[in-house]
């Protein structure tokens, strides 16, 4: 495959079967390898679409500053594109994120403003909104509420998936901004009767939920509950265990949020087997494991790895 530039090579990722983890020939699991994107994560899709839309709307011109609250991957995608397009990139990132993410962001020239660990991404959003108010000339693309985020998946991820797997019965992905699930979910619902759209939401250690009061909670503006069939909370122990199973049994080296999605996918597979129904369950491999090596997730016992992840934003 030949492309005019790296940005043009976005998407068209492989969908691979999981012959060992699938419970039977009638109930099959399929992994969409989104780590095969320009900067190595699914976030390249929304990031590049949000930039393209902002350029089209006349909000961005060379020399502009982009501001974004991000726990890592969206910032990395935006930083790469900003470098190529001549923008300055400022990321607000919780301090309890892996060192690799910081190094990669700096490598592409992004400036990082740390937000407090307690409160996780909620705090990053709050700090970024404050900065946006102080700097009205900065452009906050705001992945949580930018419709180009979900549209990127409606226009690209969804069609790719359905073309490769017309018999799809379930779609499973991690829930963060909700963009992947909203975009792919809507696309599939319009075309596949009774398709099940399943969210796997990471459940972190307590520190991340350390809000001052319950009204400080956050629900992304993009989120529309009616698109989902159901939503599971996946703790770090289950996410870790599944990440390692994917590595050991299928050879796929994925990040920890993928383990969360696989856990929910296997839960749906078990239900289908029990009900005697056929199923083709596709889930998203959001990124590779490279950025999480320093967390120790891939070494030692699961218990050791889990304790090392305590308090970390691992997805």
């Amino acid at each position, binding site marked *: 495959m030949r492309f005019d530039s790296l940005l043009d090579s976005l998407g068209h990722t492989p969908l691979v079967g999981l012959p060992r983890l699938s419970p039977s020939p009638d109930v099959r699991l399929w992994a969409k390898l989104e780590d095969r994107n320009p900067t190595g994560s699914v976030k390249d899709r929304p990031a590049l679409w949000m930039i393209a839309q902002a350029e089209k709307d006349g909000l961005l011109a060379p020399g502009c500053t982009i501001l974004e*609250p*991000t*726990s890592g991957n*969206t910032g990395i995608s935006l930083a790469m594109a900003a470098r190529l397009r001549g923008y300055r990139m400022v990321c607000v990132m919780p301090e309890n994120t892996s060192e690799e993410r910081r190094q990669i962001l700096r490598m592409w020239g992004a400036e990082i403003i740390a937000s407090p660990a307690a*409160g*996780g*991404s*909620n705090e*990053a*959003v709050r700090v970024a909104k404050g900065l946006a108010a102080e700097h009205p000339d900065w452009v906050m693309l705001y*992945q*949580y509420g930018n419709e180009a985020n979900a549209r990127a998946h409606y226009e690209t991820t969804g069609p790719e998936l359905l073309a490769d797997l017309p018999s799809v019965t379930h779609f499973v992905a*991690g*829930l*963060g*901004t909700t963009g992947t699930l909203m975009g792919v979910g809507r696309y599939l619902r319009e075309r596949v009767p009774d398709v099940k759209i399943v*969210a796997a*939401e*990471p*459940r972190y250690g*307590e520190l*991340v*939920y*350390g*809000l*001052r*009061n*319950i*009204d*400080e*909670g*956050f*629900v*992304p503006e993009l989120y529309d*509950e009616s698109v*989902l*069939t*159901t*939503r*599971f*909370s*996946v*703790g770090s122990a289950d996410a870790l265990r599944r990440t390692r199973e994917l590595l050991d049994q299928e050879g796929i080296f994925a990040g920890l949020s993928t383990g969360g999605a696989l856990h929910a996918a296997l839960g749906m597979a078990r239900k289908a087997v029990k009900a005697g129904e056929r199923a083709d369950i596709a889930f998203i491999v959001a990124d590779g494991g490279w950025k999480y090596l320093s967390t120790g997730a891939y070494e030692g016992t699961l218990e050791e790895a889990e304790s090392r992840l305590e308090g970390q934003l691992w*997805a």
Partner: protein
Amino acid sequence: MAIEVRIPTILRTHTDGAKAVEGKGSTLDELFADLDTRHPGLRGKLVDGGRLRKFVNVYLNDEDVRFLDGLGTELADGDDVTILPAVAGG
């Protein structure tokens, strides 16, 4: 019948700091009413006007109860209920 309920840090002022409490009830609504008798004020933090509050997520055996029957979700002995504030990802 006993159901274990995990309480987030932010609501432990109602449980004398306990991370988990036990309650009973055949539905989630009954469970919250039962908990409120021993942990006054807790129910009001979770429910408003007969519905779960916007920034409160409740999971029954890890599944979001909004996709089950909400407050009417039926419970069984040994079930595991987790309460968490809604937080951002991404």
